[in-house]
Structures are given as C-alpha cells and as structure tokens.
C-alpha cells in the first residue's frame, strides 16, 4: 500500500509543515483583523508585497531577519491604508480590500520591474537554512519532520500561541475581541474604537506580509509574478473554517497543507490519467468545500463588516 506508506515518510510531514507555514501566517493575520471586525481582502496583495520586498531586501545585500521585518513594515503600511478607508472612513470593507489587493500587487510589480529592468529570469538569493533543534530533531519521524525546519516556521508556530494568549489573556486582546462584537461597548469604556481596529488591521497585515516573505526567502529563493496564487483567499476560507480561533487556524492550515502534500505525491506517483491541472484545482475546491461545511454554524464576530462611525445618530 504505497498510499499509506506516505504517512510514515519524514519528507511528507516536513513538506506538510513547510507548506502550512505561509498559510499559518496569513490565517493568523486575517483572524486578527476579523476578530476586530474588519474583513481584510487586501491579504492577497499584501502577501505579494511581503514576498517581493523581503526578497529585494536580501537581493540588495540585506540580512534575512531584517528582511522579515521590512516585509512586516510594508504589510503594516498597507494595513494602515486599509484602515484609513475601512475604519476611519467607514467605506465598504469588500471594495476597500479588493482595492488594496489590486494596489499592492500593482505597486509590487511596478517596483520590481523598475528596480530590475530588463531581467528575464528571476535572480536568486541565499534563503533561510533549516535549523535542526538539538535533541528534539532526533525524535523519529515526528521530531525529524517538525524540528528540522526554517526558523520562520518555528516563528509561525510560536505566534499561534502568542496570538491566542494576547487575545484571551490580555486587556488589548479583550479590546480587540470586544470591538469585533460591539464597537459601542468599547467606545463607552473610553477606548478609541478606531485605534484598536487600526492596530489589529496593521498587525494582521504585517503577519500576512511575513507569510508572503516566507515563500521568497525560505521556501524558494526568487520572486515570481503570481507566486501567491490565491493563497490569501485560501487563508480567508481557513479563518471561517477555524471559527476565528488561533488553535483551530493552525489545525486548519496543517490539514490543508497535508491535503496539498498528498495531492502532489499522488500526482507524481500516479500515471497521467488525471491531468495535473485538476490536482492544482484541489486547494481552491477544498477551500470552497470547507466554506460550505462550516458556514452553516459559523459564528461570525457580530460587528464584522459593520463600520463604526463616531458621533453619528
């Protein structure tokens, strides 16, 4: 049974975790925004921007960790722009988000072209190397798969815990959750609704950008156009799948990546009976299926998509 042997394969699990990493960043980022009541459809574009600026930073001679920071800063800037429109001006979050995705993508491609004119094959950089955690990485299968990964992957896992802690155990997390449920309840306690939402959207967007950066400075070593390829939209489906909980977001991202890894392996091992395009469709189809299954009982943050306008009757 070749199919079942796959699950004993270290490479399979390692690949699953690797593929889950950008989804974890993206899903966590989107989750933070939505918990504060803001749907961030800028995610696809912000991930594109993160991927490009991180790569460009390293390509220009910068250091890898600084590149992660630079990506996060760019993500936060687009988050701020999103917030200016959707939070402060109270404009449609749907249209704002699509606009941000279009703008971020266009600016990224334009900048890439301007900074590297006439380049046809994308140049390469030296990406993050895997870091084997001492002892833990020697545990058979699980340890070998889990603890010999990119430092950014460890960061993603740590952030799941951090986000969960902040959301449920700190005053800021309480404010974020409350502002997504009923902004007026936050306003009457003397807290600025706009600032809480803006902070959440900026931090969330920073996460998204790092998710994009992971692709160019950890998995691959170059920036390609269209490389995000719908991952952002998949993250939005994953947030619903996760019922807006960080732990479940991790689970969803892993599950999703596992399906992806299975799909790739089956595609490689099976004959050409099924054209490869149908395998490539699977992530999108799975996302839609996940939405169909989960939407029935989805308990949306009550103020999601609802703009708050101070001092209006």
């Amino acid at each position: 049974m070749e199919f079942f042997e796959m699950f004993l394969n270290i490479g399979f699990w390692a690949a699953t975790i690797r593929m889950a990493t950008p989804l974890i960043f993206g899903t966590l980022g989107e989750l933070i925004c939505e918990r504060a009541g803001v749907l961030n459809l800028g995610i696809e574009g912000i991930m594109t921007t993160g991927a490009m600026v991180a790569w460009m930073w390293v390509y220009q001679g910068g250091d890898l960790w600084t590149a992660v920071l630079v990506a996060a800063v760019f993500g936060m800037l687009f988050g701020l722009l999103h917030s200016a429109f959707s939070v402060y001006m109270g404009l449609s979050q749907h249209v704002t988000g699509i606009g941000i995705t279009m703008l971020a993508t266009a600016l990224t491609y334009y900048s890439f072209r301007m900074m590297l004119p006439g380049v046809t094959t994308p140049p390469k950089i030296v990406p993050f190397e895997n870091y084997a955690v001492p002892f833990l990485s020697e545990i058979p299968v699980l340890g070998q798969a889990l603890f010999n990964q990119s430092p950014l992957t460890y960061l993603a896992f740590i952030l799941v815990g951090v986000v969960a802690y902040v959301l449920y155990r700190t005053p800021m997390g309480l404010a974020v959750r409350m502002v997504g449920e009923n902004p007026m309840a936050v306003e009457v306690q003397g807290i600025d609704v706009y600032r809480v939402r803006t902070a959440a959207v900026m931090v969330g967007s920073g996460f998204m950008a790092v998710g994009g950066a992971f692709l160019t400075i950890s998995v691959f070593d170059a920036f390609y156009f269209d490389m995000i390829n719908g991952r952002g939209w998949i993250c939005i489906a994953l947030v619903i799948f996760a019922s807006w909980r960080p732990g479940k977001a991790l689970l969803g991202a892993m599950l999703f990546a596992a399906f992806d890894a299975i799909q790739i392996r089956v595609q490689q091992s099976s004959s050409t009976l099924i054209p490869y395009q149908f395998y490539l469709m699977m992530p999108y189809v799975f996302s839609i299926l996940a939405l169909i299954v989960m939407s029935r009982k989805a308990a949306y943050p009550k103020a999601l998509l609802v703009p708050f306008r101070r001092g209006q009757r």
Partner: protein
Amino acid sequence: MGAALSEPETVLSVNGITKRFGSLVANDAISFSLNKGKVLALLGENGAGKTTLMNIIFGHYMADEGSIEVFGKALRASNPAEAISHGVGMVHQHFTLADNLTVLENITLGTEPLWSVTRDIAAAKAKIQKLAEEFGLKVEPDTQIKDLSVGEKQRVEILKALYRGAKILILDEPTAVLTPQEADQLFATLKDMLAKGLSVIFISHKLGEVMAIADDIAVLRHGKLVANFPVSEASREIIAEKMVGEAVEKPERVKMTAGETLLAIEGVTAQEGGHALLKNISLSLHRHQIIGIAGVSGNGQGALSDLLAGLVTPVKGSVTLKGEGLTRFNPSDMIAHGVGRVPEDRHVEGAVGEFSVEENLILEEYNDSRFSKFGWLNMSSITKHAKGLITAFDIRGAAPDTMIRSLSGGNMQKVILARALENKPDVILANQPTRGLDVGAATFVHEQLFKARARGAGVVLISEDLEELLSLSDKVVVMYHGMCSQPLDADDVTQQQLGLLMSGEGFSEMEASHAA
C-alpha cells in the same frame, strides 16, 4: 440638618451647549447644573434633545458651542475617556454590551492599561462582587451577556459605571424596558447611590416616576431648555405644559361594540433555530377593536409582529383571517389578505432610506397593474399616487422624488402609515407606531388608528408605553416568555396589574404545560 443648611455643592455644570445636525438645532444654548447627592430629571418629548445633550456630556458628540464643568474642572476632549476620568458614568438607553462576552469582560474592559501583559481577573471579580452587594445589583460575573434578562443587563450597565468610580451617573430612559416592579427596584438602588454621595441625571418622559424620584427638574422642548425648577415647585400639569408647549388635544377612544371576528390565532407555536419564540398562543381580533400587546421587550412581541407581517411561519397551530385559514406565510400573501403592517423600526424594516418617497410608497404593490405592466414601471402613475398620499396623510417637507431619509421621523412614519393604510386593510398590525415621535406626530398616528377602527378595521397594537396602550386599546394582552395572557378589559386593568403580569406572574402553569 447640617448638610441641608450648607451651600449645595455643584458637581456638574453645563454652560451654553449648542449642537446642530445640519439645519436641525438639537441643543440650543443649554445651561443647567447638578448638585451633589441629588437627582436631576431631564424631561422632554421624543426628539427634544435629551439624549443628544447627555451624549455631549459623556463625550460621544462634539458640541458646536459651550462648555461642561465637572467638579470644577472643564471637560476638554470630546470623548468618553475624558468623561469617565472625571467621574461621569452613563447607562445608555440601548445597552452597550457585547453579547458573546462575559459580564466581567464587559465591565473590566478599559480599566487596565491596554499594553499590560496580563489581566487581574481575581481582583476584578472581588471588586464586582463587593459593588454588587453594596448596591444590591446581583449578577454572576462569568455569565455571558446573551444569557441575561433585560433587567440584569441594566444592572451590568450600572456596575460598569460604578466600577469606574462614577460620581455622577446619567441614566437614559432607564425604565423604558423594565416592568413597574423592576423599576421600583432600580429606584431603590438609586436611593442607595444618593445616600453614598453620588449624583444622578435621570432622563425620562414619564411624569409619574419623575415626581417620585427627582429633586430638580429640567425640561427641554425643541432643543431649548424651557424650565428648570425644584420638584417641590412643580405639578404634573405645569410640567406637561412645559414639555409639549400649547396643549395638544388628544383623541379619545369612543365606545364601540366589537363586530365579527377578523383574525383568529389558535395555538400557534413558532420557532427560530430550535428556540421557541411563540408558545401556543391564541388571540382573536374583531371589527371595531384595538388589542394592545404589552410586555417587557423581547418576550415574543417581535415574533407575534413577524407572524402577522408574514415573516414567520408557525410550526403548530392555525391563523385564520376573515374565516380563511392561512397556509402560506409571507409578506405578499399577508398584504393580499388585507393586512396593513407598520413595522417596529422605520429605518430598518419600514423604509429604504436611499429611495424616494414615491418608490417607498409602492414598495408593497409595485406588481399592481396601476404601477407596472410587463415589468415596466409606470412612472407617471407612481408619482401621481405619491402626490395623492402626501396630501391625504399630510406628509410635510416631501415631494414624490424626495429621498426618504431626509424626512423627519414623524413624516417618515406618515409615509409608512400611508403605505399600510391606503388600501383600507381590515387587519392592522402597528408595532411601536409612535416610538421616537413627538406628541404631534404621535397624535396623528393615534387618530389614524382610531379612524381605521371606526370604519370597521381591527388593530393589533404592540407598544412598550403602557399609557399609550391603555388609552388606545379595547383589550390588553400581556406577553411573557412567548406566551399570551387572557385578554383584559383595558378600562378595568391598572398599570400595576399589567406590571405583575409582565414580570411573569400567572404564567408558570402555562409555561409548565408547554414544556411538558
């Protein structure tokens, strides 16, 4: 006696506050002051500017002119943080609580620095419990808000203010959602607060309770402060006159004998998501009859309204209209069966704000051949129709193509009333038809309902205003937990009796039989 002799200490003074919303002057150069340990009742009709003024004090709105001083210090920034830090707390008319979070979370939000890495839940719980005992405001800190009753939610709102160390408490129409008995309990809590040196601003339009609790009275009319005197110098007549201006002649209910049965609801149960909204209710409505539905909000009045509007399909029981049993429940069928419907919230269900008056007026009957043929709208006939109704219902400030959201509340309600009544329906559903309207507009609505009754229609009137209910209705039915009481004769029943029913007395047997 010593305290009474000393100079009263002013804790809050409002100086020349003016606030405009476009061309509307909501507050016009208002000045008054509040003394320590006293209750100032702020009275006025709907739309007089009471809530606007309080929202300015609490920092929700920015005043255009004027200043506010609390304990001798000026409130500078217009935001609630500033008000809270000066010791002002406010209980809003519409609760400002997050349903999916706990009592404790709702109370403690904003009390710890946002950047702190932990929350001290144990200390918060202890403080809440201490305050709860001190002021008789019993709540369970770990309960989620959505599981609380209306009265309990109000207690959480008061605790929120006390937790922040409020010295001045603003209560915006606190009794509107309470039974008379719950209101008495609230007044007892207020007395405790006054004894401990707090000061209270109490907004109301009910004269009775104001006379009972207030020390001073301030009356607003059309955004102006028209009177400000101690309660000892006031009488109900004087206050009423100050509130309304010249006396408006209220229509009187004339005796009529009820005619044939128009509507019969028998044993109807309705659910939403497995949750029973209506439990085995029965109700019959006759010609020349107004039935008033009383109850604390959220006890099934909304579901009864939805049933008659065609928005809810019963899972059990029958609804018979003029002898015909209904099988399909949707708005169009209800309209076709001659039910005229005035919804609870004119902004939400009543009107499409971005539509013109003429479009809103045909929203229920654009399929009629007068207004459309083969899918094409007949614009000239739609405009003509609107012109007729604007005159007939005295809708002011409106041309057929005026966007309806630019109309005042009263005129918007007239548009909705015109749409519901123009085809002379036999059964009329009026859900909170005068909420938020001034006396003039409310009187107009009452007149229209009486007119319909006189021509032989039956009216189901849902209202939280017991005075309105008792003056308009022939029979009153109280709803509690989705059940209906026996119809009571409006001439024989008192507000106190209704209050007991509203708090559930006499329903236990019914509830047990439904559960079984």
